[in-house]
C-alpha cells in the first residue's frame, strides 16, 4: 500500500484540519473490566438507535428469557431489542430519554435464573443476505455512540462498491476507555470480526484506526494483524494524532483514506464503511454464539465517582445501580452525563437505564460541572480554526439571531456534527453548539422554497 513505507508496519494518515487538544483523562485505561451481576430489574427503552422506535413484542405478565426479542419494528431503519435477563415483564411505561424524546420502555423483573432463550443459537451464514439478516437479528447498532443500525451500514445500496473498512478505535473523547479495553481484552474477537465482514462483503482494505495515546492497543492489534494469515497486508493499523475529534466519521475517513464525504452523503458513497471496534468485536462473538446485544462495557468516571472503572453491565440497568456497583459517588454530583464530556448528554437524574450505544457514564462535582458565564464574542477566530467542518461559527450565530434559514443553509450549518470543538475553545465561553443546533432547526423548520 502506498500509505505504508517499507519495513513500517503502521499506516500514516492523510491529515485533517481543525480539532482541539482536549485533556485525555483516561484514568480507567489500565483497569480490567469488572462484570456487574445481572440486576433485579431492567428497563429497556424502545428507542436505542437512530431510526424508528421499536414496538414491544411482549405484554405485562409475559415470561421472557435471556436473549429473547422484546421489542422490534417493521420499519426499515430500526434494530430489535432483547432481554438481558430472564423473568417477568412487570410494566410497560413511557420514559424520557436523555435527548428529551419520550419512548415506551419495557420493565422486566428478574427471576434470578438467567434462563437462556431457545432463540439464542449461532446464525447460519451462507451468503451476504443471510449475514445481513443475522446482523439485524443481533440488535447491533453503532456502539461508538451514534447508534445507527449496523445491518444498514453493512448493506450499501446496489451498485455501490465498498473497498475500505475503517475500524474506529480512535476513542477521542476524554475519560472513555471502553473501546480501549475491548482492544486489550478481546483483540482476537476484533480481528475475527474484521475477517468476517471483509470476506462476506468482499472488502479489500481494512484500516484499524487508533489514537496515539493508546500505544498498547496499537501494538496488540498490529501484532495480530501482521502475524495473521494476511500475506497481502490488507489489514493494517493506523495511529491517529491525539486531536479530538479524530474519531468522528467524516474526519476519520479523511484521515485514513484521504477521501471527503460530500455534504449530505454517506461514507458508502466514497466506498468506505466505518465500524466501531466494539461493534465489530461483538459481531464476531454473535456469529459464534448467537447471543444478541444485551451487555455493554461502560467507563464510569468523573470527579464525583469514588473509584473510576470499566464495568460490563446488562443493557437496561438503571444508572444509579451501575454507579453503586462501581463504588458509588464520592459526593453528590452536580452533573451526570451519558457519553463523553465533549458530545455526551447531561442527565436530569440517575434513574434512566443504560442504552445500547452508551459507552460512559460520567459524574462531575460542582467545580467541573459549572461552565463559565458566556460573554461577548471577541472574534478571536479560535472557533473557526478548530472547526473540523470548516465552518465560521460567529457568522452562523449572527444568522441564527436573524432567523435567516437561507443564509444558514449557505453557511453550511447542516454540516455541523456538534463535536463541540468551537465551544471548547471559545474564550468567551459562548454556547456555540447550542447556536448550531438552533441553526439546524431553523433550516429544518423553514418553509420550503417554491419551485419556480
Amino acid at each position, binding site marked *: 500500500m502506498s500509505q505504508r513505507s517499507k519495513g513500517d508496519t503502521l499506516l500514516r494518515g492523510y491529515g485533517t484540519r481543525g480539532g482541539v487538544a482536549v*485533556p485525555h483523562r483516561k484514568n480507567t485505561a489500565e483497569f480490567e473490566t469488572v462484570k456487574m451481576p445481572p440486576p433485579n430489574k431492567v428497563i429497556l427503552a424502545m428507542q436505542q438507535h437512530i431510526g424508528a422506535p421499536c414496538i414491544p413484542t411482549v405484554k405485562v405478565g409475559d415470561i421472557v428469557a435471556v436473549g429473547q426479542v422484546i421489542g422490534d419494528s417493521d420499519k426499515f431503519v430500526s434494530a430489535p431489542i432483547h432481554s438481558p435477563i430472564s423473568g417477568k415483564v412487570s410494566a410497560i411505561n413511557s420514559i424520557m430519554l436523555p435527548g428529551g424524546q419520550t419512548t415506551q420502555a419495557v420493565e422486566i423483573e428478574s427471576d434470578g435464573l438467567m434462563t437462556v432463550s431457545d432463540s439464542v443459537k449461532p446464525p447460519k451464514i451462507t451468503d451476504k443476505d443471510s449475514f445481513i439478516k443475522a446482523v439485524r437479528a443481533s440488535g447491533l447498532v453503532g456502539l461508538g455512540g451514534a447508534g445507527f443500525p449496523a445491518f444498514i451500514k453493512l448493506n450499501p445500496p446496489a*451498485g*455501490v*462498491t*465498498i*473497498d*475500505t473498512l475503517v475500524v474506529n478505535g480512535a476513542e477521542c473523547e476524554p475519560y472513555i476507555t471502553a473501546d480501549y479495553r475491548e482492544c486489550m481484552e478481546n483483540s482476537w474477537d476484533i480481528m475475527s470480526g474484521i475477517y468476517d465482514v471483509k470476506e462476506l462483503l468482499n472488502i479489500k482494505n481494512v484500516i484499524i484506526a487508533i489514537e496515539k495515546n493508546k500505544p498498547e492497543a496499537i501494538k496488540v492489534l498490529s501484532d495480530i494483524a501482521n502475524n495473521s494469515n494476511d500475506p497481502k497486508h490488507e489489514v493494517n493499523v493506523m495511529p491517529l494524532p491525539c486531536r479530538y475529534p479524530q474519531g468522528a466519521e*467524516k474526519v476519520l475517513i479523511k484521515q485514513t483514506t*484521504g*477521501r*471527503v464525504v*460530500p*455534504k449530505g*452523503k454517506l461514507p458508502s*458513497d*466514497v*466506498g468506505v464503511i466505518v465500524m466501531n471496534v466494539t461493534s465489530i468485536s461483538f459481531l464476531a462473538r454473535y456469529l459464534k454464539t448467537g447471543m444478541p446485544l444485551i451487555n455493554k462495557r461502560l467507563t464510569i468516571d468523573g470527579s464525583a465517582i469514588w473509584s473510576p472503572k470499566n464495568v460490563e453491565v446488562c443493557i437496561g440497568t438503571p444508572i444509579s445501580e451501575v454507579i453503586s456497583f462501581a463504588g458509588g459517588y464520592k459526593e*453528590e454530583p*452536580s*452533573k451526570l*452525563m451519558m457519553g463523553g*464530556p*465533549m*458530545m*455526551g*448528554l*447531561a*442527565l*436530569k437524574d440517575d434513574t434512566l437505564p443504560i442504552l445500547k450505544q452508551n459507552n460512559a457514564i*460520567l459524574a*462531575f462535582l460542582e467545580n*467541573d*460541572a*459549572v*461552565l*463559565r458565564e458566556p*460573554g*461577548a*464574542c*471577541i472574534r*478571536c*477566530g*479560535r472557533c*473557526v480554526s478548530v472547526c*473540523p*467542518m*470548516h*465552518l*465560521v461559527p460567529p457568522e452562523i450565530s449572527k444568522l441564527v439571531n436573524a432567523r435567516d434559514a437561507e443564509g444558514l443553509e449557505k*453557511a*453550511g450549518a447542516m*454540516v455541523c456534527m456538534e463535536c*463541540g470543538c468551537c465551544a*471548547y475553545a*471559545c*474564550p*468567551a*465561553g459562548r*454556547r456555540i*453548539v447550542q447556536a448550531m443546533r438552533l441553526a439546524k432547526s431553523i433550516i429544518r423548520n423553514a418553509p420550503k422554497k417554491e419551485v419556480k
Partner: protein
Amino acid sequence: MSKELIVSSSPHLQAHDTTRRIMLDVVIALIPAFIAATVIFGWIVPIITAATIAACVLSEYISRKILKRDNTIGDLSAVVTGMLLSFNLPATLDAIWMGVLGGAIAIIVVKQLFGGIGQNFVNPALIARIILMVSFPTKMTTWPAPLAWIKDGGIDATTTATPLAIMSEGSGEGLPSIGNMLLGLRGGCLGETCAIALIIGGIYLIARKVISPIIPVCFIGTAAIFMMILDFAGIDGSSISFLPAQLLSGGLLLGAIFMATDYTTSPINFTGKIIFAIGCGLITVIIRFFASLPEGVSYSIIIMNLLVPHIERLTRPRPFGDLKEKKVKGGAKA
C-alpha cells in the same frame, strides 16, 4: 438524588483561555515596550499611560452604566486600548490630557456606542489617535529627543525630528543608526520606538497563541517588498539603504504586531488575514511615499478595518464536503 443536576448542552469541558486572560497577555506583551519608553523618555511615560488607561476604564464603566449594560471592565480590554493609545502619543506634558480625551473617544464613541467588545468595526485606539492628530497637529507631533530627560534634565526640553521626516527630506542626514533605532533611541511616539521591546512582545503573543504570526509577517513583509520595488523603479525617497530604517521607524512594528492583529477588527479566517495584512502593508507604503503625511500605518489599518466584512465574505472557507463540482473519489461507481 437530593440535589438538582445541572443539565446543559455539550460540550461539558472548556479550554483554559478566557477573554480576560487573552487581554492580560496583550498587556504583558506591551510591558517591555512600556519599560523601554520609560527609560527613553522619562517619568512622564508612566503618567501618560496611567492617565490614558484610567480614562479608558472609567469611560467603559460609566458608559456601560448609562447604557444599562453589564459591567465589562473585568475583561481588561479597556486597559489594552488605553495602553495602546498612550503608546501612540508623544512623551510630552500635553499628552496627558490628550490621552484622557482620546481614551474617552476611543471607548465611548468607537467601542461602546457600537455595542462594546467585539462590535467595533475600527480599532478604537487608532481612531482616537487620528482624531487627536487632526485636532492638535502640532502637539501630536512635538517629539522629545531620546534620553533628553536625563541629559537636559527636563521633559520637553529638546525636540527632534522623527526618522521618517528625516528620510522624506531625502538626504538621510541626522538619521539615527540602525542600532539606536532597534533600541528605540529616536524621535517618535512613546511606545513605537523600541523595536526590540515590540518584537519581544510579539514573540510572547505568538508563543502564547494569542495572535498568529501571519498578520505581522505579511504586513511588514509586504511593506518591505513594496519599498524595494519602488526603489527599483527609482521613486524618490525610497533608496534601498533606507529600507531597514523605514521598517524600524514610524509605527510599523507597533501597528503590525499590536494593532493590525486586533481580533475584532481583523478578518477571522486565515486567508482573510493574509489579504488584510497585505493591504495594510501596501497602503502604509503608498502613504509614506506618495501622500503628504509622513506616516501611514494608522490610516492603512483603519482603511483595512473597514474592508474586513468584505474580505471575510470573499474568503469564507467552504464547509467540509461542500464540493464545487461532483468530485466523488474512491470506490463509488454508481
